[in-house]
């Protein structure tokens, strides 16, 4: 029984890792948002050259494993341009770039699902294209995207565990330390898994609340 109490004494240590995890997730989602929206707009409204570049970016960040991207940037690309980033910041950057690629797809399909009539109506009351975008298209697109966004949150949360490979002190890294320290494996990892599930439910719960608050009544698909 002493090994159990031994483990329990490490629980705060593991749960502290949630702070790093949330950092990774928040940073990744935020950066992804800042990249994803322009990328989506480029795909829907952009010229050929712009579209090409965006497609290339999307290709790379959606078809290459996160693990490979982390190592490529940390050990290769960042040092080569003289950037000395610590594991945490590198992870957030890579997660953000990756999430941006996925989020751009979410926004893109949301924008495309808004009927042409909306844009025409906006322009017919004298709005310029950018005004129509800002006041009519994007507000609707964002609301439509919320479910997809909630999904992206769940995905990034699980992907954050992969950052253990760079040594970021998030939940999984700490759990591994605990398994070495206590010699136990099953209990710590089960605990970590449950912690992730709790964080997932908590996050999607909040997002659901936001979704309900901002819903457009009667709009199909929202």
């Amino acid at each position, binding site marked *: 029984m002493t090994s159990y109490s031994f483990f329990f004494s490490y629980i705060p240590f593991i749960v502290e890792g949630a702070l790093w995890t949330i950092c990774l997730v928040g940073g990744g989602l935020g950066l992804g948002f800042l990249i994803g929206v322009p990328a989506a707009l480029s795909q829907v409204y952009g010229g050929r050259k712009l579209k090409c570049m965006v497609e290339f970016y999307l290709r790379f960040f959606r*078809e290459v*494993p996160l693990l*490979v991207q982390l*190592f490529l940037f940390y050990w*290769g690309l960042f040092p080569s341009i003289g950037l000395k980033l610590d594991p945490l910041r590198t992870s957030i950057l890579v997660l953000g770039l990756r999430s941006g690629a996925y989020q751009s797809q979410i926004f893109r399909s949301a924008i495309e699902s808004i009927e042409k009539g909306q844009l025409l109506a906006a322009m017919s009351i004298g709005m310029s294209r950018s005004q129509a975008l800002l006041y009519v298209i994007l507000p609707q697109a964002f609301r439509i995207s919320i479910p997809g966004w909630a999904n992206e949150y769940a995905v990034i949360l699980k992907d954050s565990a*992969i950052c253990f490979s760079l040594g970021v002190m998030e939940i999984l890294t700490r759990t591994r330390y605990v398994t070495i320290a206590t010699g136990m*494996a*099953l209990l710590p*990892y089960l605990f970590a*898994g449950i912690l992730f599930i709790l964080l997932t439910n908590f996050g999607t719960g909040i997002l659901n609340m936001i979704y309900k608050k901002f819903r457009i009544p009667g709009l199909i698909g929202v």
Partner: protein
Amino acid sequence: MDFWTEFLGSLLSGLLTTLQMILIAAPAGILMGLLLGTMRVYGGRVLSSLALSITAVFRGFPLLVTLFILFFGLSEIKIYLPPFWAAVIGFVLCSGAYISEYVRGSILSIEEGQSLAARSIGMTKLQEILYIILPQAIRRALPSISNEIAYMIQYSSLAFAVGVQEIFSISKTFNSIYFKSIEIFSVLAVIYIILGEISTYIFRFVEKRIRIPS
């Protein structure tokens, strides 16, 4: 040039391992997804709750956690899985859980009329599911399943964490010796992109072959 021949040579054997993992885990994962999805829609209270629990757990746990539980956790209770099989089982459980959601969704999207018609010619529930519902559900779920397998190919890299000598693990080793990081991981990236494209191509081919003309 010595580095390259060594690296590419080792990569080849690693590639073999990666392919073996995927070629076993992909069909198994799809089957598991079909089974779980069907259980959730047609199972009684017991079966569908069971399927729901399994799905919830393996969609909620990060794949890495599942792998660690299978490899390190189980060995604690005297079940010793070799790294390769721990990885494969982990992939099957994870993908199967996600695929079961797609299957469930596509089954529910099939109009009630199909079920009524099946019963009206005397089919039992099992016959109805096997011959009428599932053939249509699988076709509808195929794009999502293809997507999920593409993910599986990417996440196969995580097998390194339990000691499988697949392509990422080998690249990592070479990186720690030679530090030619950009070259090493760029090649790796390209390999994964190619694998992903091949898989997508295969699924698109299958989709075309079994499409219902309209």
